[in-house]
C-alpha cells in the first residue's frame, strides 16, 4: 500500500493562516465570555451578600441608631419612588411632545438638529446635570416661581428628568417613525385634522413602544446617584412623601453606606444594592422584551 500523496490537511502557509484564524476566534469567544462572567460574578456577589440582610424590617423600618444592628431602608425606598415619579411626570410629556414635533411636524433639517442636541444632552456627565440643577433651584430659589432655595425631592426629580428626557424622546421618535404612513393617510382621507390624527391614531398605535422606552429610562434614573448628590442628598431618617423636602434614595444610601466604617451598614448596602439591581435588571429585561415585540408588530403592518 502506498501512502496518498494528496491530503486535505493544510500545510505551510495555509496551515499558519488557519491557526491565526482559530486563535482570533478563540480570543473573540474569550472576550465575550469574560464580559458575561464579570456580570455573573457581580450579580452573584451582590445576591450572596445582600439576601442575608433582607427581612421585613429592611423594607418597613428606618435606619437603626448609629452602631446598632437591624434597621431598614424604608425612607430610601419611599424617597426613590417620589424622585422617580417626579422625574417621569416631567420627562414623559416633554419627551413625547418633542418626539411628536420631530416626527409629525418638523422639516428634516430641524429634526436632525433636535436629534443632535438630544444626543449631546445624553452625553453630558450626569454629575454636571446635578450641578446644573443645584445652581438653578438649590443654591437660590427660582426667580419667578419662588420654589427651591434648598435641597428637595423636586430638585432631585428634575435632575433625574433631565437624564431621562433624551432617552424618552429618542425612543419615542424611533417608535413614531415605525407607525405606518398609511394609518395617517387613512385618517386624513376621512377628514380628520392633523392633531386629532396624532392623538387618536398615531399615539395609540405607538403607545406600547413609548411606554416601554419610558420604562427603560425609569430603570436608568432609579439607579442614578450623581444627579442627586447636590440636589437631594441631606435628608432626615423618617419616611417622607413630601416632594418639597429632601428625601433619602436607594442609590445614595448605597453610596454613603459603602463608604461608612460600620460593618452593619455594609451589609445594608449590599442588601439595598440587591433590591436595586433586581428592580433595574427585571424592568429593563421586561421592557426590552416588550419593545422587541412591539417593534415586530409595527414592522408587520408595513
Amino acid at each position: 500500500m502506498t501512502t496518498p500523496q494528496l491530503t486535505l490537511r493544510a500545510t505551510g502557509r495555509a496551515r499558519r493562516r488557519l491557526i491565526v484564524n482559530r486563535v482570533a476566534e478563540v480570543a473573540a469567544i474569550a472576550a465575550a465570555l469574560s464580559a458575561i462572567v464579570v456580570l455573573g460574578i457581580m450579580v452573584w456577589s451582590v445576591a450572596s451578600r445582600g439576601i442575608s440582610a433582607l427581612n421585613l424590617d429592611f423594607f418597613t423600618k428606618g435606619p437603626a441608631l448609629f452602631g446598632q444592628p437591624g434597621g431598614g431602608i424604608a425612607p430610601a425606598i419611599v424617597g426613590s419612588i417620589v424622585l422617580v415619579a417626579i422625574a417621569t411626570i416631567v420627562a414623559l410629556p416633554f419627551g413625547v411632545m418633542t418626539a411628536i414635533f420631530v416626527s409629525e411636524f418638523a422639516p428634516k433639517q430641524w429634526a436632525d438638529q433636535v436629534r443632535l442636541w438630544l444626543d449631546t444632552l445624553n452625553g453630558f456627565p450626569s454629575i454636571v446635570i446635578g450641578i446644573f440643577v443645584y445652581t438653578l433651584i438649590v443654591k437660590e430659589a427660582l426667580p419667578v416661581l419662588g420654589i427651591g432655595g434648598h435641597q428637595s425631592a423636586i430638585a432631585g426629580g428634575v435632575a433625574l428628568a433631565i437624564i431621562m428626557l433624551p432617552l424618552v424622546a429618542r425612543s419615542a421618535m424611533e417608535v413614531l417613525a415605525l407607525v405606518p404612513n398609511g394609518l395617517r393617510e387613512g385618517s386624513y382621507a376621512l377628514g380628520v385634522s392633523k392633531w386629532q390624527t396624532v392623538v387618536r391614531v398615531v399615539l395609540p398605535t405607538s403607545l406600547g413602544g413609548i411606554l416601554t422606552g419610558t420604562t427603560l429610562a425609569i430603570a436608568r434614573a432609579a439607579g442614578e446617584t450623581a444627579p442627586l448628590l447636590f440636589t437631594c442628598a441631606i435628608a432626615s431618617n423618617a419616611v417622607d412623601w413630601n416632594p418639597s423636602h429632601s428625601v433619602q434614595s436607594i442609590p445614595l444610601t448605597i453610596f454613603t453606606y459603602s463608604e461608612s466604617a460600620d460593618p452593619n451598614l455594609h451589609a445594608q448596602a449590599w442588601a439595598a444594592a440587591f433590591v436595586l439591581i433586581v428592580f433595574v435588571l427585571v424592568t429593563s429585561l421586561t421592557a426590552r422584551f416588550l419593545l422587541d415585540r412591539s417593534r415586530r408588530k409595527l414592522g408587520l403592518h408595513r
Partner: protein
Amino acid sequence: MEAASVPQGETLAPSRGLRDRLGDKLFYWLTGIASLISVLLVLGIIWRILKGAWPAIQHFGLSFVSNNVWNAPLNEFGARDLIIGTIVTSFGAILLSGPISVAIALFLSEIAPPAIRGPAGTLIEMLAAVPSVVIGLWGIYVLAPFSAQYLQPAISSVLGWIPIFSNGQDKVESTVFAAILVLTIMTIPITSSICRELFLGVPEELEEGAIGLGATRWEMVKTVTVPSVRGGVIAAVILGLGRALGEAIAVTQVIGNFIPLHRSIFEPGDTLASRVANQYQGAITNLQISSLIYLALILLVISFFANFGAQLIVKRSDRKLAGS
C-alpha cells in the same frame, strides 16, 4: 334636498374647520416649544455652569487649570492632577475596553451560532444597566481587593521598570488602576453594542466575496468587515470614552480621592468628576462651591472636545474610504 343640505354644510364646515385649524396650530406650537426646550436645555446647562463657575474663574483665572492644590481651609483650589487623573483613567479604560469590545462585537455578529447571539448580546447589554453605584460597591469590596492581591503585583513584577506600573504601597486597594478596571467594565457594553450593529450592517456580498476568494474568517474580518466601518468603530470607542470621562460615583468609590497624583497607577488618585462627587457634603464657602462648578466646566469642555474629535475622525476616515 340640495337646497337644504347646502346651508347645513355651510354652518358646520367653518366651525369644525376653525376648531381643527386652532387645534392644529396649538398642537404645533405646544410640541414645537417642547422640542425647543429640549434643545435649549443644553445651552441652559452650559450657561448656568459657566455662571456658577464665574467667581472661581475671576479669582483663579486660567491658573486654576495648572495649579495643583485642593485646600478648603486656605481657599486654594486647582485642577491639574484632577485633569491628568481624568485623562489617565478614561484613556486607560478605553485602551482595555476598545479591543475587548470589538472582539465581543465580532463574536456576536460573525462567530456565535444564531441561537447564542440573542441571549449573549442581551447579557452583555445588561452590564450597561447595572447602576454605577452598585458597580462601585462591588469595586470596593470585590474587585479592588482582588486586583491589589493578584493583578497589581503580577503586572508590576513584569512591567515594574516602567514608572507608571511600578509597585505601589503594599497592597493598597483604592488605586487609579482599580478605577480603570471599573471604567473598563462600564464602557464595554456601550462600545460593543454599537460595534455589533456596525458589523451587522456590513453588506453580506462584501464579506462573502472575501470568503469566496479564499480568505479565512479572520482575514475577512481584518480586510473587509472592520475597515469598512472603521469610522463608526472609532466613534463607538469615543462614546465609551465620554462615559468614562464623566463617571463620578463608581470612580470616587474606588480611586481613593487623593492628590497629588503618584507616578504609579497602583496608588490612589482622583478625577474631576470624582472630586466633585466626593465634596457634596463638604463644600461650604462660596469660592469652594464655585471651584467645584469650575471643575464641572472643565469636565464639560474635555468631553465636548472628545466628542468633537470623534466626529472629525469619523468624517476623515469616511472620506478616505470613499476615495479609495
